[in-house]
């Protein structure tokens, strides 16, 4: 049956049909929907793990017990999970262990642009790369077979454009039942990595790589597509699609397995063409590995190593390299001078109020200049974290000084304080991020007597990746009620004395809580609680501006709420974006009391 599936849906269905029993992940764009899709199958145990490291360890455990396990994450997730990932390489597995990692070329939603393929070489594990949803589906079965045949975890590298593109999939398989029930076989030399056992395993890992190098020579997803002789293109993943469109007449070596590489196939292909080029996204991973074989090849001289590729970019590179004739038709010009529409916090966002308070108490607006760099100093240092709230960096809120990686804000705040800055330091972190990587920072703060303020923004969901549950919501990945981890009990249990819980939409209470925490020389935690407005089921009481009372002071525009708009010198509220009674932050802030329920004021525009 033919279906239109995203790469992520195809991964999930492929793994399900391959008989996967355990799946674990932490949400991360663009990988999130893999676990969401697989959680819908009753026969599979699927969970949102606390973080990627735990997910990887769970996958290892399941694989050690002989069942097929799938772990999925975004590329920076593998940094978090790299410790168990490296360990899984050396111990090997028993049941198949497949790790899908989705890169983000072009940086749509990540703090860096790292190329996951280097991890395959580092960990000495095989890596597969699908170039569309059909291959994402097909390669799952293959990945589990390779994993079990060679006793190794298998890395499957995706990217935003594979994971988040839909293409036609022939779903021609059905679920294969697991061969045997889970059982763990005691084998200390394989599973207990004491140095003496590591020394036994090291040659096994090297021999495995040699065997894989032979295997990949006949791997059916490494394909030669014969075209004209003058140009041979080596490519993989979505870059293959761009290359195929840009060079319709060239010969292709399309690689489905990009580590280890098929040396003989590559030599053979190179000998069949006049000129060999590699078209790949991000780093020259294939190119350098092919060069190391002594094969003459080009690539990154003309293919950009930064950002996402597309057919146009590959064609432009082709013109520069003299591989394509430049067309004569006029080129579309980017329209100039249009106002941008950068991402913003949504209307009714529970993060808006607290950041407004931090902005005003910290006198942050004076930091404003064109590029967010300023010689001036605010009255607060605000170390930030990964989530929707990172958007509070931008005007008008201007309430974030750092963002590095999951949980980093707390450690950074401690570092600044211990370095001796004379400004108060506040760390801001979301609920899901806090559970992922913030807890250890609080333990450090308690143990080392820090005097910072930690603000946990609890919107009851992992919002930016599309509203996944987490330990703090008490709902499992399968949508079932489960034990909830209570944030206030957790931080009190660690030993924080000053813990306050505040309503995210009560501006007076927010201001009072922040002031009191800043006055406290000891460690304090404020939990700001309010539901994500995107999840509001029933909206009522949309706000409106009474133009008779409004004196155009623009205080309401300082919230950065997208529902509050100004056009032709008049501020108004777009009811379709307003969260109404659930929020009312603008009404609380308006000095002229010009904002109230639409029903009381009437349409102002």
């Amino acid at each position, binding site marked *: 049956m033919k279906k239109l599936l995203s790469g992520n849906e195809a991964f999930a269905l492929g793994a399900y049909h391959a008989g996967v029993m355990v799946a674990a992940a932490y949400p991360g764009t663009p990988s999130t929907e893999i676990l969401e899709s697989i959680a819908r199958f009753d026969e599979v145990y699927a969970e949102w793990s606390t973080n990627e490291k735990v997910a990887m360890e769970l996958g290892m455990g399941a694989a050690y017990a002989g069942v097929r396990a799938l772990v999925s994450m975004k590329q920076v997730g593998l940094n978090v999970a790299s410790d168990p990932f490296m360990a899984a390489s050396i111990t090997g597995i028993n049941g198949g262990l497949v790790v899908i990692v989705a890169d983000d070329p072009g940086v*749509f939603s990540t703090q860096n642009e790292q190329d996951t393929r280097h991890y395959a070489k580092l960990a000495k594990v095989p890596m597969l790369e699908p170039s569309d949803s059909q291959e994402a589906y097909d390669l799952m079965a293959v990945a589990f077979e390779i994993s079990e045949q060679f006793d190794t975890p298998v890395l499957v590298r995706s990217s935003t454009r594979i994971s988040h593109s839909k293409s*036609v999939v022939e779903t021609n398989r059905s679920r294969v039942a697991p061969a045997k029930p889970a059982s763990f076989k005691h084998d200390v030399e394989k599973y207990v990595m004491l140095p003496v056992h590591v020394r036994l395993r090291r040659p096994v890992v090297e021999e495995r790589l040699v065997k894989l190098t032979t295997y990949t020579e006949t791997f059916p997803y490494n394909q030669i597509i014969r075209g004209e002789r003058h140009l041979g293109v080596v490519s993989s993943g979505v870059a293959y*699609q*761009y290359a*195929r469109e840009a060079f319709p007449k060239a010969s292709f070596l399309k690689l489905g397995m990009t580590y280890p590489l098929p040396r003989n196939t590559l030599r053979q292909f190179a000998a069949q063409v006049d000129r060999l080029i590699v078209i790949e996204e991000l780093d020259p991973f294939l190119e350098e590995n092919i060069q190391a074989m002594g094969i003459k090849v080009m690539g990154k001289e003309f293919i950009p190593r930064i950002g996402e590729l597309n057919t146009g970019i590959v064609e432009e590179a082709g013109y520069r390299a003299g591989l394509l004739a430049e067309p004569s038709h006029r080129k579309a010009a980017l329209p100039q001078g249009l106002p941008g529409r*950068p991402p913003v916090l*949504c209307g009714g966002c529970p993060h808006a109020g607290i950041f407004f308070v931090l902005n005003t108490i910290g006198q942050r607006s004076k930091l404003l200049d064109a590029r967010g760099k300023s010689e001036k100093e605010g009255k607060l240092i605000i170390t930030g974290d990964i989530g929707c709230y990172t958007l509070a960096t931008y005007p008008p809120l201007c309430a974030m000084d750092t963002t590095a990686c999951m949980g980093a804000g707390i450690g950074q705040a401690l570092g600044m304080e211990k370095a001796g800055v004379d400004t108060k330091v506040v760390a801001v972190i979301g609920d899901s991020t806090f559970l992922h990587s913030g807890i250890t920072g609080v333990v450090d703060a308690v143990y080392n007597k820090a005097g910072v303020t930690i603000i946990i923004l609890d919107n009851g969901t992992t919002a930016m990746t599309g509203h996944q549950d987490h330990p703090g919501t008490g709902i499992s990945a399968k949508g079932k009620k489960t034990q909830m981890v209570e944030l206030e009990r957790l931080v009190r249990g660690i030993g924080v004395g000053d813990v306050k819980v505040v309503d995210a939409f009560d501006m007076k209470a927010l201001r009072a809580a922040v002031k009191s925490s800043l006055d406290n020389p000891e460690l304090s935690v404020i939990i700001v609680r309010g539901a994500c407005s995107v999840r509001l089921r029933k909206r009522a009481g949309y706000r409106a501006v009474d133009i008779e009372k409004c004196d155009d002071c*623009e205080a309401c525009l300082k919230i950065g709420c997208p529902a509050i708009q*100004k*056009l032709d010198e008049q501020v108004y509220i777009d009811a379709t974006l307003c969260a109404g009674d659930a929020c009312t932050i603008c009404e609380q802030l308006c000095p002229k009391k010009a904002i109230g329920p639409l029903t009381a004021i009437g349409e102002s525009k």
Partner: protein
Amino acid sequence: MKKQDLIMVGVGGQGIVLASDILGEVALAAGYDVKKTDTLGMAQRGGSVVSHVRIADKVWSPLIKEGQVDVLVAFEKLEAARWSHYLREGSVAVVNNQTTPPLSVSSGTQQYPGDKQIEDILRQWAERFYFIDGTSKAKELGDIRTLNMIMLGCVSSLLPIDIKIWKDCICQRLSSNILKMNMVAFDKGREEMSRAGVR
């Protein structure tokens, strides 16, 4: 049918991803190869959103090249102008008559383009363009969220695919409690286009 490359653009929260999903399913049901991809920023709501849908006998790249789009479907006027450089010469644009000023306009640092400026930008490439009162029609139907089905109805008037396939695919995708209203919205979109002289 020759190849059709479409982009749907607008503001996060307008239902563009669902509309382009359904368009892709319609093309598959009509027997074509199809690829579709969304380009979204980090935000859940309020950012600029673009969906690429490619329909042909064989599709390679999921992303459409600039200057190759046959049909631009804009849920908001500024976004129509922003993505106009994707249009090929002789293409068609359908634009919802809605103004959603971004923060930079509300705060007075930038100007929202006038209707004439937007038309001039589109006219550089588009052979025909249609301004549709989709937002007000959706409000009349009692739910702003039906806008995406109105816009999809407009698209259906431009592609030679049997109307039954469109309706079947919408039925499969939407839950039954909102189906009726959305079907009315879809037909409204088709009406708007026929009023504008398309078929």
